[in-house]
């Protein structure tokens, strides 16, 4: 039976929710799912992973213990594990970590790789992904003995497929990296990363100033949402670049995207067009965003958003 590897991403001792969509994308009756875990706590994720159909959990460590984060070492550890267990297909998230790991793995294996897939068929070795700033959907076939897939976070709806998983400890020896991670500087942003948020509230040029983003943050907090920004808002220094959604910012795929005072350029849509529902709030009834959203409110965000926050508090409070 073919073995499919899932590179599981963990943050602060918890499996990132977006992993479950990757597992669902890989799931099939005729192959076995192997979850590759590198944080040293493999056994603790057994319940969560088997719920979605993972049969084997490979708890990967070095002889000295857990392998400290270093993309070169982690990539080598994953390759070692794939070769040891005969895993020829690997899936992971197109997250910040996945973007640094999956291409290293594919380059070392000389295996084909498609990043940011919006759908995947591991049996046929085909995927779909957006190209040209979201204007085109490409269907791509991977030709090679080993294949690597990066899945866009939230692009595949997770489906439970319970089974009983077995935990296997696997020791690898990885040394001699060319690069050193000196430190991680925490950013000003807290909470969920934009690319993995279920709900995003974004502000555009109409925000008029950095301090006004507070209105969006208050609303986001009620829903457990992340706050984004358009390029116009970032270029006007109302928001840091890490918050930018769009062509030269982040690509997001939340269930709900609320665009406040964003006109809706092609470049902005490139970053959020695969969202579930798109809501636009804008004073200009002719703004292009109203042609490409699901629900529109013609009005001033500074009036609408606080009302939304208040009503959501009442609704969700019940």
């Amino acid at each position, binding site marked *: 039976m073919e073995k499919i590897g899932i590179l599981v991403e963990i943050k602060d001792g918890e499996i990132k929710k977006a992993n479950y969509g990757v597992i669902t994308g890989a799931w099939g009756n005729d192959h076995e799912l192997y979850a590759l875990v590198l944080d040293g706590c493999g056994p603790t994720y057994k319940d969560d992973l088997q719920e979605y159909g993972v049969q084997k959990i490979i708890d990967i460590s070095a002889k000295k213990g857990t392998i400290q984060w270093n993309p070169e070492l982690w990539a080598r550890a994953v390759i070692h594990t794939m070769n040891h267990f005969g895993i020829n297909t690997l899936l992971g998230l*197109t*997250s*910040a970590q996945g*973007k*640094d790991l999956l*291409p*290293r793995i*594919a380059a*070392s294996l*000389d295996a*084909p790789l498609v*990043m940011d897939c919006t759908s995947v068929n591991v049996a046929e070795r085909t995927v779909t*992904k*957006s*190209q040209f*700033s979201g*204007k*085109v959907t*490409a269907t*791509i*076939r*991977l*030709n090679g003995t080993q294949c690597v897939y*990066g899945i866009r976070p939230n692009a595949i709806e997770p489906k439970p497929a319970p089974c009983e998983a077995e935990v296997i400890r696997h020791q690898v020896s990885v040394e001699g990296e060319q*690069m*050193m*991670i*000196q*430190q*991680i*500087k925490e*950013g000003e*942003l807290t*909470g*969920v*990363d934009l690319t993995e948020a279920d709900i995003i509230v974004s502000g555009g040029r109409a925000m008029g100033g950095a301090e006004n983003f507070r209105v969006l943050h208050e609303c986001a907090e009620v829903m457990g949402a992340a706050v984004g920004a358009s390029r116009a808002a970032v270029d006007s220094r109302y928001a*840091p*670049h*890490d918050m*930018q959604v769009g062509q030269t*910012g982040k690509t997001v795929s939340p*269930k*709900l995207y609320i665009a406040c005072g964003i006109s809706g350029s*092609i470049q902005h849509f490139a970053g959020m067009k695969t969202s*579930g*529902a798109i*809501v636009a709030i804008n004073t200009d*009834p002719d703004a292009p965003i*109203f*042609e490409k*959203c*699901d*629900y*529109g*409110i013609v*009005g001033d965000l500074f*009036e*609408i958003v606080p009302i*939304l926050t208040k*009503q959501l508090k009442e609704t969700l409070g019940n």
Partner: protein
Amino acid sequence: MQIYVCVKHVPDSAANIIVKEKNQFDESAKSVMNPYDEIAVEEAVTLRERDGNSEVIVVTLGKEGAINTLRSALAMGAGRGIFIKTHERPDSMITARALKAAIEQDGKPDIVFTGKESIDSEGMQTMYRLAAELGMPVANNVVAFSMAEGRVTVEREIEAGAREVVEMSIPCLIGAGKGLNNPRYLKIPDIMKAKKKEVKEIDLDSLSFEKPSSSLEILELELALEKRQCKILKGQPEEVVQQLVELIKFDED
């Protein structure tokens, strides 16, 4: 130092893409230098301006029109160019091998810069493959860069605004992210001067490298049509918000 910058000629992000013959697109679309590659060129040129003793060589692989992107990079301050010509759209496995072959045929790179990704194919991998081919460490999505005594220190943007500080020895490869710098505007005299700068043309087929055992095959390109039908909510602010709350509650279930 020899600083190489790899750039790509891509359709402008605002250009209309026309799909033809199932898996091709009309390449007459207005094309420009990949925006992240401009940042890479800017960083390389700034580095040369600071140390005075370096050479910046810009390399591209592409069809006829890619010469324009090469000229733009030369106008920004790169010293000379290498143009690997092809009639195809090679995947990243071939591209990385071709770039490596052309660079090594030309000189001995101390630093290679690229953009963090290209906005046409959005493959997000060529810099990693090139680094592996060249046997260099690589850091991508770099937003701060410094160099001292043969060591490079970079900051990479990771998630939720956090940055990872990475140290590498040279030679190494740097993938430029937005925020690393603001690329300069081209001045007419520089554009004129760029026309006289040396560009070495190489045919892709004349480069010798081992053919990759794997490939990506574009089966189909399809225009992503916008299927959303906007429903404008009408009424007083309190009422429209109430409608919206009902709708998004429903959508979440």
